[in-house]
């Protein structure tokens, strides 16, 4: 593995410097050690500036405005669509703005699902889906009389594909996450997508954890739908995107209706606008979209290959350092191979409940997440009441990993792990 972090120390320092929240010593005189980017990323100055510039100099509604600032706003908004589309190698016509990944998935479940899923049909998901890529399909199945089945995952959180062809038999839709937000597992899309297509299924990929962390090419992946959120990849909150293959999107009925998504309206009915606007009802999150454009421009300048390498290296280093604590009862969940993991490590430490762990770490200026990570069924299956999760992003350093380890040491001291020890592991 290439140790790009060490090589790129100055690049990394420059990246850290791009983030106002990381620049200043905000937590009791220390620099924030933010290890919760899988929940939401921090925002670079250039994205914040894009918002401020829009609101301060050319704030206007889009598409129908004749005057200059409305034109500028429209160009910036549609220009941002082009940038985000190019970022995942999609055509701008195939990129629909949504609030977030969740809304993108719901759009497909309602519009495509309502038109295509019939009683007795099968929808296949995996056992490690985020609630946002699970509950909409449970609801769709309940509405339509379809059946929901699961691709199993093993104890390490890796997809078990032994019976894939059987599982795919008669399946109309496969919905799975590109990267698990609980375990970091990267799904073997290269295996699943062609076989799903061969079985006649449409494939939706939840890219919420992948688009921020690795190069994504929807054409090369050959997925039918790809959903992702801006806020996890340096963009503002309230903006996400749905990529869909043009033929599928064209054939789908609109989901939300109202202003902007129509072509003509009479008292008797309406006809709809072209793609992608057919799916964008009402005033969009204009500033959010512009900020998303700035965010992917920023990420592209850094280079998504670099991002992937950087995170692989950090995860690898974190695995190494966490291993030191194993004799005291630290347990890492999920695949422990940095090649199979994106940005996330889940773990527990002896009998310290992850919420307590997160509180103590917060006292040390280290932000991690604790809980079920919106994957309750997976937690139940694995028998984990909750896990602590550290996730990494472009601005994290080896020093952040060291800070995590030191803070875990503090937690061990508070909980007297040396004495009470690894004896009483959590969740027994």
């Amino acid at each position, binding site marked *: 593995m290439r140790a790009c972090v060490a090589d790129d120390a100055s690049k990394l320092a420059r990246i850290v410097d791009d983030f106002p929240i990381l620049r200043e010593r905000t937590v009791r005189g220390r620099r924030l050690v933010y290890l919760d980017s899988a929940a939401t990323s921090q925002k670079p100055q250039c994205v914040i500036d894009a918002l401020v510039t829009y609101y301060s100099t050319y704030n206007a509604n889009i598409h129908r405005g004749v005057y200059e600032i409305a034109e500028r706003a429209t160009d910036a908004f549609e220009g941002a669509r082009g940038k985000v589309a190019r970022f995942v190698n999609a055509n701008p016509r195939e990129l629909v703005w949504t609030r977030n990944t969740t809304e993108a998935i719901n759009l497909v479940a309602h519009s495509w699902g309502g038109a295509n899923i019939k009683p007795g049909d099968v929808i296949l998901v995996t056992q490690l889906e985020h609630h946002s890529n699970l509950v909409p399909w449970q609801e769709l199945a309940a509405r339509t009389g379809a059946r929901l089945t699961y691709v199993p995952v093993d104890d390490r959180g890796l997809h078990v594909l032994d019976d894939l062809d059987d599982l795919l038999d008669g399946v109309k839709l496969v919905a799975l996450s590109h990267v698990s937000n609980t375990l970091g597992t990267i799904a073997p899309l290269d295996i699943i997508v062609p076989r799903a297509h061969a079985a006649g299924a449409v494939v939706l990929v939840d890219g919420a954890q992948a688009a921020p962390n690795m190069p994504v090419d929807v054409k090369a992946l050959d997925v039918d739908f790809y959903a992702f959120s801006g806020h996890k990849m340096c963009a503002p909150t309230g903006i996400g995107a749905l990529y869909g293959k043009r033929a599928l999107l064209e054939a789908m009925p609109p989901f939300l209706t109202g202003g902007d998504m129509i072509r003509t309206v009479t008292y008797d009915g309406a006809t709809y606008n072209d793609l992608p606007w057919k799916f964008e009802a009402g005033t969009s999150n204009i500033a959010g979209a512009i900020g998303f454009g700035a965010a992917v421009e920023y990420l592209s300048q850094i280079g998504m290959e670099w991002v992937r390498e950087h995170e692989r290296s950090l995860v690898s280093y974190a695995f190494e350092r966490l291993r030191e604590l194993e004799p005291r009862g630290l347990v890492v969940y999920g695949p422990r191979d940095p090649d199979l993991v994106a940005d996330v490590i889940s773990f527990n430490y002896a009998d310290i409940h992850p*919420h307590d762990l997160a*509180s*103590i770490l917060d*006292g040390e200026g280290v932000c991690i997440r*604790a809980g079920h990570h919106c994957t309750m069924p997976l937690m139940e299956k694995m028998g984990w*009441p909750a896990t602590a999760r550290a996730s990494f992003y472009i601005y994290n350093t080896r020093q952040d990993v060291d800070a995590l380890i030191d803070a875990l040491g503090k937690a061990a001291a508070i909980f007297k792990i040396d004495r*009470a020890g690894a004896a009483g592991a959590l969740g027994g």
Partner: protein
Amino acid sequence: MDDFYRDYILDHYRNPRNFGHLEHPDVVAEDTNPLCGDRIRMELLVDANGIVADVRFFGKGCAISQASASMLTETVKGRPLADVARLTKEAVLENVGIGISPARLKCAMLGLKVLKTAAVGQLASWPDED
């Protein structure tokens, strides 16, 4: 927050008092904290005078929720059920001491919520919303 995890809290977490189940409880209530998944069940034995003759709690979760539930069982044993129904947030804070952060307050209050639900016989509103 670090100050919060004092020895007696950890002791209640690791050696919860009145933990388990009653054979024939008179009142039972259970709830979860949807945000963190902590779960508490309270079982009460109430005598003819309306006194809490015995109590058990069962649950899993963080040190804060488990320790404060454990301490609450000690607080209420032998007290009239009517008193239990009137217990306040302050009673819990007295038990667990200072230093709890707002985000974790719901963990500390879960046992109280369940206990009051049991006592009042209907779902109480969140104590911290009163």
